[in-house]
């Protein structure tokens, strides 16, 4: 219960992380103006996730935290993933609409 001889992260690391975050921000803005087609979203979220991980690992000291704290973080991500994945699973596998039907309320579905 008393495992923490507190790890003190040096300001150098903080500043380095900060710089990386700023670079990441610039990168994502730059990328937004390029067209990578279906990868646009992947790149944007990829960069965001790297940035977020850096914040969690260094600014929030998760890298140096006890296992239990790390488990808590993993749980959060895991449950968020459950929610997103299973809901999207429904949306992505809905039967394609029968085409050529006129809706009873009068709108045409292609």
């Amino acid at each position: 219960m008393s495992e923490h001889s507190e790890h003190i992260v040096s300001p150098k690391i903080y500043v380095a992380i900060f710089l990386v975050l700023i670079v990441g921000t610039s990168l994502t803005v730059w990328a937004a103006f390029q067209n990578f087609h279906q990868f646009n979203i992947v790149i944007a979220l990829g960069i965001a996730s790297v940035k977020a991980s850096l914040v969690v690992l260094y600014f929030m000291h998760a890298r140096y935290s006890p296992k239990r704290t790390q488990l808590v973080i993993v749980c959060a991500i895991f449950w968020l993933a459950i929610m997103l994945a299973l809901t999207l699973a429904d949306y992505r596998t809905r039967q394609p609409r029968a085409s050529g039907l006129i809706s009873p309320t009068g709108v045409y579905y292609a």
Partner: protein
Amino acid sequence: MSDTPSPRVYEFPDMHYLNSSYRAGIRSWLLTTDHKRIALLYLASVTVFFFIGGVLATMIRIHLLTPGGALVTPETYNKLFTMHGVAMIFFFLIPSIPAILGNFLIPIMIGAKDLAFPKINLLSWYIYIVGGCFVLYSFSTGGLDTGWTFYTPLSSIYSNSAVTPAVIGIFINGFSSILTGLNFIVTIHTMRAPGMTWFRLPLFVWSHYATSLVMILGTPVVAITLLLAGLERMFHLGFFNPSMGGDPILFQHLFWFYSHPAVYIMILPAMGVISEIIPTFARKPIFGYTFIAASSIAIAVIGFLVWAHHMFVTGESTYAALAFSFLSYLVAIPSAIKVFNWTSTLYKGSISWDPPMIYALGFIGLFTIGGLTGLFLACLGLDIHIHDTYFVIAHFHYIMVGGAVMGYVGGLHFWWPKITGRLYPKALSRFAAIVLFIGFNLTFFPQFILGYLGMPRRYHSYPPEFQVLNVLSTAGASILALGYLLPMCYLTWSMRYGKVAGPNPWPATGLEWKTDSPPPTENFHVTPVVDWEPYDFRNRPDLGLVAGGAPLAPAHGDD
């Protein structure tokens, strides 16, 4: 009779949590940070909501006596069942066992002086009260007629009732749940007394750990969901609004992401109560401790994977429906494990017929029926027919009233001597348990048949061919009401006139029974050290049951 004896006459302790406080009078209650007193605050307020919900239920049943509806207008009827559902679920059953018995017992059971965050604990109660006030405000000004599920766009656009305050109230109340769960988890992690290892924790604590997981992981989602629906209503924003192209089914996904796991918030604590009562009154270690503990966690985790089984006929994708049905069957297995282990615990026990045990056995029977009918609903083909009929109503009342409320009342009977220091009349409470059991079955069993015959739920009038079964159900409900009235009376009576209980009247093995009844403010006079296995009666000479106390058998079979 071979009931638990109370051969000794006990003195009521001089100083205990009820009378020792540096503040006086009502302030000593409203500003208390003592988990035991907060538990009693919850007891009082939760009872108010149970009463409200119960009166509404009674009106529902009276109205349904005749096919055309005997009592109220359709609008009012819709408000009745909505407010009944909201009061019962969000303000009675979800906080009932965790916030009352859990709050009172968890610190004592693990040998701590209090929860990790006593002030946050009090805050939870105030949040609950504020949320409750909003909801009561909604009930009394225009009522609420959306169904407890708040499906959009009915709730967000079409309903004319006071949806906004109700949604705000439930949103606020969510934080009470979250903070309680947070408090429990931290407490169980960091505050255990020396020797109280994870596998010496009472199963009640395990089940509350699982419950707390659901509370912290699920509740935020319902909070944001209702908030979005509320914003849609208040500011004409659009999230689910079909006229802006939004998808009302998305609301259901988000709602059930919480509300299915929430049913386990309601049942897991009751399972914890039963896991305490059974070994105590069978006087032997619970069968399959590790399996029961692990199944609690399994229920909490798998319970998050099944939510769309409430949506089989919304037009969700067939593949998703298959997955969710499969997972629903999977989540039934841990419950099965518990039921079988409880039953096996009785084998070769020394079973007393004390009132808590009667409640516990009622629980097992009714929960099993309720749970098994969950299997009907989880069955894709069958759910097409019985979805949103009275079959569903019967299913969840069997689990929630027959299971969870039975467990709650049983738990109150079990720990009442600890909470108040006094005993209640045993014969009367045994009688009440039996009245409850009979009344309950008469109320809700006919509803299974009604449902299969095709009577949809939330109907203020129904075709005449359904009348006979509805009348039976109403008759049962009046017996049921009597069954609840009795404990309310004699438990209140016993607070003052009951026999003094002594520290361990049953006797039971948990740490909570090693301190005074009622316990002192700091729970224990000296911090306890745990050197025994849970539910071990043989190696506990302090219980006064076995002379000598030589170990006769390993406490836990071969695990």
